């Protein structure tokens, strides 16, 4: 037997310094084992003091996850276990023939399953690990172990002889096991991330070979329910009945990605059951000693340091969050237009990070295995549907051009899918996703414009000038779309940094000013698109005039048919697109004005000398220009819009600052200006809110937010609150710092970025605070 083969078969444990072979390895003949002592000694003799033995792929990240034998913090084999934990027997009906002080079986099973269900919430909602939650349950481990082998004829893994254990506990564990398999499938699909979004350290127990299928699992749970129905009705059987029903709701969740089911009956049931369980007083019964322990961490393939068990709180409401978030996701199936799909992705996960299972379902529900979107769009149709809301006309193009464009349109599809997938990511990944997308959108825009140039068009982002060819029109629509998507990605990335607390107050000027600047471009882009749409509308109306001038005849009839067809088929869509453009322009204006007020307030604070746009750190390593460039690194390669230089950013601030001599008049002017801007913002937000809340009832705007009404309302309501706070801050600045700057203010006051409940975290307030005396707090 080769050394490698010997190693692959070798598995030994040690106890009291005695090494022993276990399980089937006990049958290993000593002739099959290789003595490597001498080999190791020879190799170690040749080692230099500085030699690190490692696989070439083993980097620092791997290193920080490495374990260490005999280190209590890192060696799970050193976990101390009690006798009860070691000898816990899953096939013993604890409670039967009880020792003094033990509960009866139903008490124990209630306590076990109650804890287990609450651990499901800890695992998913609180992002805890599997070994410290579900796998800490001996029954869960026992079942998973059994399922590593092919299916048994009988779904019942337990053999205690007591139906409370065998049917009730057994079926619940099977249901939860089934659900964990579903969660693993979500992870494997790559739409959420192992560790940060969901821990699935199953310690090698995730084969699920013997796991019964869904029908059998649900049948088994029903058997458990039948068993309970035969027992005298008391609070324990009610609890267990609710837990079993809740488990069957969890088992059904896979239907949303296997069959793309959008039914919500089981989710409503889950909410109802979770509420009942949440309202129940906590059980006063204990689970059998040893039924939950750290034992699995000690015994099985554990690549992580020992970790204490999670103590679940009364958290059944976590299932309500799960069910409500999935219900929200499934609403996308009701989308009536591409705009509603876009707006859904824009808002559903924007302010509050949704439950991890819901976020994962979203991606798989929208982008399906059959390479369709929501089961109705092909990839190309979906792409076109996105361009449609902002395009003036998407006419057919020649096959040659279509072929030439195909690779670029494939790139468009890829980046569009990335955009969708990003919308469901956790809050930190969301920002990083935009960081990547900036380059991708820039690349597709550049490719499209390149084709335009080759076609001989001199226009950049100018839609359909004086009857240019249909090809130009088509490509320009896509280029406009890519440009708008790029700008939105740049704005979202920058503002999300405020939400994630990534910026210091001194940086806020250049960042808000930059977003203001991007909004200027976005506004121009949207205007051009709008002009294009209006031109198309005018062209259709012009047909009518031309028709009227013609004499009756075949030509006039043809033109009349064409006109009626366009009026019937194209005009409503064009009108909707104009209304949507109005919404986009309003939204952009709100962002731009909020940024403008932020920079004006920064200018005032800088005039009081309580802040500068330079790093206040007193260190020789500080280089303001480099810091600025590093902050703007994500945009450094973007040609349009050009990234403002450090010098330009410095110069612009000067324009917002006042000299001492003009302070009084300028500050009054600024306060008035800001008030005007903010009043206008609040009116515009009010208008948008009215449209959001009325499902776009009205003539001037279309938000497309019907399916995410609450989320969109909350977003704009938060912006309104931020506007009000900015207004209050204008007054407060003057109140705290006085009518004009006096010497020493910088020593007394500083500025921090603050956010308030109900306000937008994308627009924190530059709040003046008194400096605290030094020396407080922990130091290193």
């Amino acid at each position, binding site marked *: 037997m080769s050394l490698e083969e010997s190693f692959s078969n070798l598995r030994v444990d040690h106890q009291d310094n005695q090494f022993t072979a276990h399980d089937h390895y006990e049958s290993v003949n000593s002739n099959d084992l290789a003595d490597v002592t001498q080999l190791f000694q020879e190799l170690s003799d040749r080692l230099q003091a500085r030699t690190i033995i490692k696989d070439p792929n083993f980097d620092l990240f791997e290193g920080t996850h490495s374990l260490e034998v005999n280190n209590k913090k890192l060696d799970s084999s050193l976990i101390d276990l009690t006798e009860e934990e070691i000898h816990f027997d899953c096939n013993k009906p604890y409670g039967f023939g009880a020792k003094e002080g033990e509960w009866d079986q139903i008490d124990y099973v209630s306590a076990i399953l109650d804890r287990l269900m609450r651990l499901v919430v800890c695992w998913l909602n609180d992002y805890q690990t599997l070994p410290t939650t579900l796998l800490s349950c001996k029954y869960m481990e026992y079942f998973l172990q059994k399922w590593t082998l092919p299916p048994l004829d009988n779904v019942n893994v337990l053999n205690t002889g007591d139906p409370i254990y065998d049917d009730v506990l057994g079926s619940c564990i099977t249901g939860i096991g089934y659900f964990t398999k579903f969660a693993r499938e979500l992870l494997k699909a790559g739409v959420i991330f192992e560790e940060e979004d969901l821990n699935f350290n199953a310690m090698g127990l995730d084969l699920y070979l013997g796991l019964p299928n869904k029908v059998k699992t649900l049948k088994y749970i029903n058997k458990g329910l039948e068993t309970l129905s035969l027992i005298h009705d008391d609070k324990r059987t009610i609890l267990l009945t609710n837990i079993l029903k809740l488990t069957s709701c969890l088992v059904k969740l896979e239907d949303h990605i296997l069959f793309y089911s959008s039914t919500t009956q089981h989710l409503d049931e889950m909410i109802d059951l979770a509420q009942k369980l949440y309202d129940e007083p906590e059980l006063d019964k204990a689970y059998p000693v040893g039924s939950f322990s750290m034992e699995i961490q000690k015994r099985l393939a554990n690549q992580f340091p020992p970790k204490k068990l999670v103590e679940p709180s009364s958290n059944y409401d976590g299932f309500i969050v799960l069910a409500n978030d999935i219900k929200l996701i499934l609403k996308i199936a009701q989308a009536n237009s591409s705009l509603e799909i876009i707006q859904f992705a824009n808002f559903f996960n924007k302010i509050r990070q949704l439950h991890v299972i819901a976020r994962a379902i979203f991606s798989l529900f929208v982008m399906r295995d059959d390479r369709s979107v929501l089961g109705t769009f092909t990839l190309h149709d979906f792409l076109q549907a996105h361009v449609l809301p902002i395009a003036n006309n998407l006419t057919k193009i020649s096959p040659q051009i279509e072929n030439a464009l195909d690779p670029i349109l494939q790139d468009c599809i890829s980046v569009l899918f990335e955009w969708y997938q990003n919308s469901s990511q956790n809050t930190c990944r969301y920002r990083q996703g935009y960081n990547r997308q900036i380059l991708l959108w820039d690349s597709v825009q550049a490719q499209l414009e390149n084709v335009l140039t080759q076609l001989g068009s001199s226009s950049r982002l100018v839609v359909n000038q004086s009857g240019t060819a249909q090809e130009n029109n088509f490509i320009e629509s896509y280029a406009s779309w890519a440009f708008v998507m790029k700008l939105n990605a740049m704005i979202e990335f920058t503002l999300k940094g405020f939400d994630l607390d990534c910026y210091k107050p001194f940086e806020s000027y250049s960042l808000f000013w930059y977003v203001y600047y991007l909004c200027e471009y976005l506004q121009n882009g949207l205007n051009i698109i709008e002009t294009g749409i209006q031109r198309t509308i005018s062209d259709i109306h012009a047909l009518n005039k031309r028709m009227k001038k013609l004499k009756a005849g075949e030509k006039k009839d043809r033109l009349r048919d064409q006109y009626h067809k366009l009026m019937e088929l194209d005009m409503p869509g064009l009108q909707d697109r104009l209304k949507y453009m109005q919404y986009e322009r309003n939204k952009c204006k709100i962002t731009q004005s909020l940024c403008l007020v932020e920079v004006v307030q920064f200018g005032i604070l800088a005039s009081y000398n309580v802040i500068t746009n330079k790093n206040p750190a007193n260190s020789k390593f500080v280089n303001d220009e480099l810091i600025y460039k590093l902050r*703007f690194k994500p945009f450094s390669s973007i040609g349009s819009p050009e990234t403002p230089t450090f010098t330009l950013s410095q110069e612009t601030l000067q324009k917002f600052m006042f000299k001492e001599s003009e302070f009084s008049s300028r500050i009054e002017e600024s306060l008035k200006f800001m008030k005007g801007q903010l009043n206008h913002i609040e009116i515009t937000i009010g208008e948008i809110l009215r449209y959001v809340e009325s499902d776009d009832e009205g003539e001037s705007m279309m938000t497309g937010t019907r399916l995410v009404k609450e989320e969109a309302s909350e977003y704009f309501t938060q912006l309104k609150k931020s506007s009000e706070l900015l207004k209050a801050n204008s007054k407060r600045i003057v109140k705290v710092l006085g009518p004009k700057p006096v010497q020493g203010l910088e020593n007394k006051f500083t500025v921090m970025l603050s956010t308030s409940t109900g306000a937008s975290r994308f627009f924190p307030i530059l709040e003046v605070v008194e400096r605290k005396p030094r020396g407080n707090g922990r130091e290193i």
Partner: protein
Amino acid sequence: MGGIEYKSLDINSIRHFNELKKLIDIDLSEPYSIYVYRYFLNQWPELCFLAFDSGSSDDDVPIGCIICKSEMHRNSRMRGYIGMLAVEKSYRGRGIAKKLVEIAINKMIDDGCDEIMLEAEVENKVALQLYEGMGFIRMKRMFRYYLNEGDAFKLILPLKDKSCIRSTFLMNG
């Protein structure tokens, strides 16, 4: 207490190795294996600095240390990295951590680093204040980065223009 002396690590000193490991293990939320220490110290001993109290009864026991590395990042820029920093509790508030960071940064500058990077827990206000006070900025936030489930910031101190260009373009260039 006497003056504080700063020295680079003597890789052959097992005592210093064990002491600095002890110093760090006490404070870190993340338990590190001996491999992690050896990974840094054996490969970049010149980027590990220790602080000693010359007035202490045992002036050979480090009371503070910083452990760093520097290597090519994505084949595009030389990146210094601060892996660990610790000062014994009774010596805190005397600027020892700041001095250790300064010494390490200076060494990494001399070695030609384009930037210096580190991660810090979002809740570790003291560490953030220290590094931001030296010119580091928060580049990104990482969700549930640590085993204790906390988020982290990735902080970078730019030293050269190369730090401010995306790796993709440096590699292509």
